[in-house]
């Protein structure tokens, strides 16, 4: 009984760590990317936007397959081996974080980009005529105005990372306390006919998904009211 509870707690903690870290990284990487996609006049920016959106369409196993190669001995592993003696980043927590960043990127970049676009040029122009440098204008005007986009992006990025399965299986395997996250654990419990544990985790996920979608709707409603 004790070990079984421990078996359930470890994937939950691992999942939260993975999703939390991925979300933070995505906010850091996704914000400048979303800003560039919203503002740039470059003709090739939609090509970049398409690349970012690819995980929406690709089967997670395809993404996972390429990530496996990219993280392996002839990819990232070639860099990490002489430095840390690590032949591959696959089957590590770090590898999962990298995979999740790619996998969840569209869910973070798209809402933030939309929010930046909906804002239009005017607020930044007004800020510039009030002596605000581009950086100050970004922090004091663009970010607060795009707040609903950031919230949506963060919630979606977090939730989507929690729900990933295919990519994890391909590049993470099923190593307890290292890469065995919730979705894989549910699969495992079912495989080994531990229905009670599977029920608890699966039910928890259902409640979690419900809360995520409800809170998203409420955020958007609130934002629409504030903007009116």
């Amino acid at each position, binding site marked *: 009984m004790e070990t079984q509870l421990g078996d359930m707690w470890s994937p939950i903690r691992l999942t939260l760590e993975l999703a939390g870290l991925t979300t933070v990284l995505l906010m850091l990487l996704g914000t400048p990317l979303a800003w560039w996609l919203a503002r740039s006049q470059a003709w090739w920016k939609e090509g970049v936007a398409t690349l970012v959106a690819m995980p929406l369409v690709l089967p997670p196993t395809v993404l996972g397959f390429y990530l496996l190669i990219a993280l392996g001995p002839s990819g990232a592993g070639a860099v990490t081996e002489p430095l840390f003696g690590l032949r591959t980043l696959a089957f590590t927590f770090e590898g999962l974080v990298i995979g999740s960043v790619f996998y969840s990127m569209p869910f973070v970049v798209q809402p933030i980009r939309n929010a930046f676009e909906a804002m239009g040029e005017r607020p930044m*122009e007004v800020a*510039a*005529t009030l002596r605000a440098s581009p950086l100050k204008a970004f922090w004091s*005007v663009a970010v*607060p105005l795009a707040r609903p986009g950031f919230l949506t992006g963060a919630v979606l990025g977090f939730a989507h990372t929690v729900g990933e399965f295919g990519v994890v299986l391909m590049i993470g395997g099923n190593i307890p306390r290292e890469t065995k996250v919730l979705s894989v654990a549910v699969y495992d419990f079912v495989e080994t006919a531990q229905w009670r544990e599977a029920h608890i985790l699966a039910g928890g996920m259902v409640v979690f998904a419900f809360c995520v979608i409800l809170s998203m709707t409420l955020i958007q409603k609130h934002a629409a009211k504030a*903007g009116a």
Partner: protein
Amino acid sequence: MNVVPAPAQTTSMPVITAAFSGALGAFSLDVSLTLPARGVTALFGPSGCGKTSVLRCIAGLNRLPGTCVVAGETWQDGTRFRPTHRRPVGYVFQEASLFPHLSVRRNLLFGAPRDPAAHSIPFDEVVHLLGLAHLLERAPQNLSGGERQRVAVGRALLSQPRLLLMDEPLSALDRATKDEILPFLERLHAVLDLPVLYVSHDMAEVERLADHLVLMERGRVRASGPLAVLQSDPDLPLAAARDASVSLDAVISHQDDAYGLTELSVRGGRFLVPATPGAVGTRRRLSVVAGDVSLAVVPPSPSTILNVLQGRILSAAPLRDTEMTVVLGLGPAGDGDRLLARVTRRSWELLGLAEGTSVFAQVKGVALANLASGPEMTEI
């Protein structure tokens, strides 16, 4: 031989020179302007003539090849381009564009320098001038259109600009709201010594506010000069308009309390108008519509018309087939302020009028174009 210093440093009257030429999308702009860096200059013309583009180029919001020098400071030339946030401009957009996430107070202070010693336009004065005291803690969403635009003007002023750019600040507002805001703008211009470029397509606004006028047409400057001079130039479309009028800057010279009249002096003549408050010496702007002025070659017999002024015909241009637009100079020699008169071609020929003819102008209507100016406002 002494070397004469560069004129830009020595001219007593600071100027704004702006020249831009190039294409913005499908629209081509080609302007070259030298404007006084004091008082209010109106950029006037039909929509789509490039007024706003000129303003945006001066603010650095658009970049076209050209030069921009304001009061001796180069903002743009062949090699340099100072970005908007380093130009000491205030910009009031057509829509107030307040920051919705900030209160009125924080909107007002957004561009204000941290150091209060740098405030030559103090917060309290702006709040007072624009009547914002009761709005400070509100959110922009809870303001009326007129209130929002007043906050936008205040916000621009508090960034301590050395040039205020206003892009049709009233055009998004209804008539009643305009009339609510115009007195505030007049007070600003009376109290603050800040050059203003004011874009408008509404001649009534221009008459109330502007000292200098730039007429624009299809991306070009048609004419630039003092307001009254351009209004009375028969070669320009203003004088040919059905409701053509001329603005005169007048000074109160006498208050006739017995009859409830105020006497206002202009160069070359005097007008009597229904009593308007103000001490002798107070400045007022008058507007006389061409259709309200008729001409006589001999002093007219006594009539109920209050205002009969002597003048001389400076020029005349036919308007359609039946009418003439006549430019008068006030005073016996015709060297005073100008008036426009609209007369029929028949009268013109029957009276034998010609350039140089001495005439008496009977003025049936005089309007006070602005109300708020003069000493009582400078006490603030």
